């Protein structure tokens, strides 16, 4: 009965409680936004690294270990030993696969740490390769995963004349990793196409042709410039069958191919701004956009495999140490990441945000023209390109507290006007907790109405985003129900906690008030 009265009162007082309802709607709106991204990030975030790594999750080989501590409890065979990867510049993984760069893997015991250094330098059989078929099979059925893209790298070298500071010209050899790109994949967002700044990107008709796209900022790190239209002659190591039957690159035998550079890409990493002090003591805010500077050439996947096949790899699998997993719905990336890791217990799966963080710890080549050294390492001056704003959980909770306080204050005012009504109810036999239940029902109903309003506004937008991302309707439904449950639980909890004060205050109102007021 008292719940019914509370509901009736809530309906009756809706007009008088608009501020409280709207504040709760605002709180729910913020919480819903936070929840919809709490397990992932917006679609536009971390575009650079997602594009480069070929997906939203990177999976490393079965024997890859993030650290020695990571090996504990894995039951590592005594025939294997943990090996650090060195910072040897010959390694094709050094710049863009920061996990491998800064950590290590399990290799045959006694092979020595140095042996693990050169995945592309003759020791590739020691590195943990991926079995792509098994990998793809294991990931089947994980709802968030839409594809597996192997990171295929063929380390070539190029020779170029370099002008020394003395003015003399010297012929030098540069390690030039070629990265096979799945052109269809790159045409999606974020794909290579969106990062092309000069010439053109790779097109489907390029598959198999000797064309490449180079980094527009490669000269910053000292690599020769490769403008669109330029020709580059590359020396590729031949391929032979290793003792374990896997392909091994033979860096003692080479074949050359001439590639045409058709375009340039740029990989923005972060924006840095700082206060510069001029000669006269004048202060000026300066800023610089930073880019990765990579020696990589992006080439069609078909071209890479064709060369591999021609140089002795026919019938052998291209050695792959890492794969990108496509997760179109990035709003729930962490959920999918857990599912991927669970499906691949022997592998290591890393999400884009963590990967970028690791990459920056490993000092990715990101040369600056103007940024002072003191500023480079200080995060207060920097904003990572595409990084989502991290409001954390604190702001929604604070907003909820404020909204709940508003609701409670609103209820105190509304209920204060109804002292007589409460007095009548008590005279007729309502107990203290009956009155409290009635007021709490009213507070909760008004709060829930506001929360539903806020949730609906955000959810419509979130649902539209998920539908655009081709998330199955069933998953959208489940996510909506789960998020709604959280929003309502927090709303009802806050309403009850903050509604207790007016409820208790008025439940203690003596029935005598009615007669005394007459």
């Amino acid at each position: 009965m008292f719940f019914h009265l509370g509901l009736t009162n809530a309906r009756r007082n809706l007009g008088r409680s608009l501020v409280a309802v709207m504040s709760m709607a605002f709180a729910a709106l913020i919480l819903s936004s936070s929840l919809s991204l709490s397990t992932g990030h917006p679609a536009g975030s971390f575009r650079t690294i997602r594009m480069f790594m070929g997906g939203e999750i990177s999976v490393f080989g079965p024997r890859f270990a993030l650290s020695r501590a990571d090996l504990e409890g894995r039951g590592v065979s005594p025939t294997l030993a943990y090996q650090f990867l060195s910072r040897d510049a010959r390694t094709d993984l050094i710049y863009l696969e920061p996990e491998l760069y800064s950590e290590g893997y399990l290799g045959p015991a006694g092979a020595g740490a140095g042996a693990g250094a050169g995945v592309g330098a003759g020791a590739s059989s020691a590195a943990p390769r991926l079995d792509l078929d098994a990998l793809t099979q294991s990931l089947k059925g994980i709802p968030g995963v839409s594809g597996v893209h192997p990171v295929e790298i063929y380390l070539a070298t190029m020779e170029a004349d370099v002008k020394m500071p003395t003015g003399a010209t010297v012929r030098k050899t540069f390690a030039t990793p070629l990265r096979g790109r799945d052109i269809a994949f790159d045409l999606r967002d974020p794909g290579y196409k969106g990062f092309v700044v000069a010439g053109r990107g790779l097109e489907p008709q390029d598959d198999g042709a000797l064309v490449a796209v180079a980094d527009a900022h490669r000269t910053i790190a000292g690599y020769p410039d490769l403008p669109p239209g330029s020709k580059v002659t590359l020396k590729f190591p031949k391929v032979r069958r290793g003792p374990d039957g896997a392909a091994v690159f033979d860096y003692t035998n080479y074949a050359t191919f001439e590639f045409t550079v058709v375009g340039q890409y740029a990989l923005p990493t972060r924006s840095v701004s700082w206060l510069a002090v001029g000669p006269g003591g004048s202060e000026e805010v300066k800023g610089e956009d930073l880019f990765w500077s990579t020696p990589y050439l992006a080439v069609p996947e078909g071209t890479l495999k064709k060369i591999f096949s021609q140089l002795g790899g026919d019938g052998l699998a291209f050695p792959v140490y890492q794969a990108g997993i496509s997760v179109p719905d990035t709003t729930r990336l962490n959920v999918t990441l857990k599912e991927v890791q669970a499906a691949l217990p022997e592998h290591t799966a890393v999400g884009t945000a963590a990967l970028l963080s690791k990459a920056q710890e490993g000092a990715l080549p990101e040369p600056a023209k103007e940024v002072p050294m003191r500023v480079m390492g200080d995060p207060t001056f920097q904003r990572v390109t595409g990084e989502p704003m991290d409001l954390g959980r604190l702001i929604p909770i604070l907003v909820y507290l404020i909204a709940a306080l508003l609701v409670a204050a609103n209820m105190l005012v509304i209920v204060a006007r109804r002292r007589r009504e409460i007095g009548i109810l008590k005279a007729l036999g309502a107990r203290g907790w009956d009155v409290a239940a009635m007021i709490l029902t009213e507070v909760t109903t008004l709060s829930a109405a506001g929360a539903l309003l806020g949730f609906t506004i955000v959810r419509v937008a979130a649902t539209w985003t998920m539908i655009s991302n081709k998330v199955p309707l069933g998953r959208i439904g489940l996510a909506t129900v789960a998020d709604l449950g959280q929003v309502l639980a927090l709303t009802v909890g806050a309403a009850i906690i903050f509604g207790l004060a007016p409820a208790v205050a008025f439940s203690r109102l003596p029935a005598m008030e009615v007669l005394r007021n007459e």
Partner: protein
Amino acid sequence: MDEPILRAVNLNKAFFMGEAIYAVNNVSLTVGKGEFVAIVGPSGSGKSTLLSLLGGLDRPISGDVILDGQRYSKLSENGLALLRRRHLGFVFQFFNLIPHLSALENVALPMRFNRLARTAVTARAQELLETVGLGSRLRHLPLQLSGGEQQRVAIARALANNPAVVLADEPTGNLDSKTREEMASLFEKLNREQGQTFVVVTHDEGLTGCAHRVIHMRDGQIEKIA
């Protein structure tokens, strides 16, 4: 007197404003089942305070009230609330209806407190409103009713749970003379035909005329019983 249903034993109620002012001073009273008792007296004589003590709406500083064997002093606040709900009916001078509930819902309210079945509650509320002559005003809100009609709704509400005693505080105090007469007749009829016990605080001679006993109060004490 018939078998006693309500007893007040040495009731005292004082308000402390610098010194103790006794609104009810050592009052003892017994009301028999089916009796119609009127309490009269000048303003400030303690009539309404006595009524609120009899109704368990207020606590005395000493003394006790016993309703059908239940001592108020032994009951908690919740116990008193349940006693009011089940055994007492109230009629107030200003009607005190819940403004956003219809006449039918107002009458049904005390029965709903007792968790009676909705259909039985509605039937009983309808019957009571017909008894007080408001069979055609069931869905009207209090503001759509005249003062007399509102008081009839209040009477019907007071009778809803077949209370042992109906306590009325100046039930005709806010009505015109014609309606006062109608109300007095209604009280008299309910007492005569249904045996309903009434304790009524009033200045209305029409009501005192219906009473079996009239208790005169002055300065918080019973001056005489007629």
